[in-house]
């Protein structure tokens, strides 16, 4: 009797689990579908960097979006931009088959963990925080050899539910360059620890979208 009860319980929880996974996967596929529907557009961008050893004022310019894999920037002057991979990373997660696991809720946002089935995928795992309006509020991607990226989004009624602001955080290794190259003969470089890793953040604010 107890054995049957246990078998019943296991079967029920598995089916519940698989029902939940299917829901999560459906929701993720929904999100990807929305992304693919976005037409090419241009918009104004403001880029701010917060990295321990980089000092740069806000940069302004334009972003040209053609597809999730094809984003270009036209910035006045010099700018530090997120690596292309960060933009394409999230979409590459969904190119092949994947498992989506509902991790529960946090502050009314559903947390879905995505694990790609492709063993060669750059990404080991990704976690998404999605709100009730089906907007991704936050995502964390863990890659094989490029560390982890965290992106937090803000929205303000932009068409196609495009974020008005994205803050991307990632690991950055401290730069220590030879004094001969930099002309810094005051020994500042000695004060920095070799190979010290710190968190860097790039915040991009989007506005004035033209489709």
């Amino acid at each position, binding site marked *: 009797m107890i054995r049957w009860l246990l078998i019943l319980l296991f079967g029920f929880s598995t089916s519940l689990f698989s029902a939940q996974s299917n829901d999560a996967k459906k929701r993720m596929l929904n999100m990807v579908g929305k992304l693919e529907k976005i037409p090419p557009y241009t918009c104004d961008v403001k880029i701010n960097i917060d990295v321990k*050893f980089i*000092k*740069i004022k806000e940069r302004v310019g334009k972003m040209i979006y053609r597809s999730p894999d094809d984003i270009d920037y036209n910035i006045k*002057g010099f700018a530090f*931009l997120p690596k292309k991979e960060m933009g394409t990373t999230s979409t590459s997660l969904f190119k092949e088959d994947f498992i989506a696991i509902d991790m529960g809720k946090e502050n009314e946002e559903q947390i879905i963990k995505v694990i790609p089935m492709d063993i060669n995928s750059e990404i080991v795992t990704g976690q998404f925080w999605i709100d009730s309006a089906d907007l991704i509020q936050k995502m964390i991607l863990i890659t094989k050899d490029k560390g982890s990226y965290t992106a937090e989004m803000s929205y303000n009624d932009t068409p196609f539910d495009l974020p008005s602001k994205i803050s991307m955080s990632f690991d950055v290794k401290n*730069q220590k360059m030879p004094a001969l190259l930099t*002309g*810094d003969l*005051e020994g500042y470089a000695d004060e920095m620890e070799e190979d010290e890793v710190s968190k860097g953040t790039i915040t991009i604010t989007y506005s004035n979208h033209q489709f």
Partner: protein
Amino acid sequence: MIRLINIELFKIVKRPRTYIGFLAIFLIVGALQLAMYFEGEELISIAIQNLENDFRLEGKIINANLLTYLLLNSIIIHIPILICLVTGDAIAGEAASGTLRLILQRPFKRTEIYIAKAITGFLYAIALMVFLATMTYGLGMLLFGSGDLIVLRRGVTVIASDDVSWRFFYAFCSGTLSMIVVASLSMMISSFVNNAIGPIVGTIAILIGLNIIFTLGAPIFKDILPYVFTSHFIKWQYFFDFDIDKLALQQSVMVQFIYILIFNLIGIWNFSRKDILT
């Protein structure tokens, strides 16, 4: 005094050695800029390869502003050598050639003659720095155009192209002040010897020696470093910080002015008293 300065300027303008400095700057600047034109990308990529691992870098790194910044570093050794060639010769060279005797037989105090020579030396230093600035920025604009300045000092600082001009102005002023210290030192040494080579070699030896000692960064020297004049030759770099350390710069200006005063006072004192035997 104006008369004496005009005479000294006339002598400097007529002397072929004067133009070595300008020619050398022309060649150094030209060579470096051409090298950067052809090989600059490779050199820069070595410097910023770590950055490229974490970011996508958008924009022109090599531009007139970067070249000007890099070439300002030549004031540590190269420009002082060129200045010494003229200022070190001011008294010792004339003593060796016998013309010092000629001008000291005229009704002018030795102090006046020394000051006129010193001012002329300073004007020469200023002229060299102006030429350096013009040559560097002018040729840089021609070859590379303008752009944001990326300073790889104390991390990475990016200065917008429209925020750079005033920084360079003050940086060159600071560099020029340092070169006036060099001119004062070489003139002081020039007043002690009767051959033209002595002040030139002596000044360069002092500059290189002090640079080596303090660059090695021995802890025992750390406390006296702010009072050694060679340590101020790179203070112009402070103008390219995000938050400019005004106090440090003010102290630097003061220290250098004191050195200029001391070197010239010693030079005048010695020159006024020395027996002219040549």
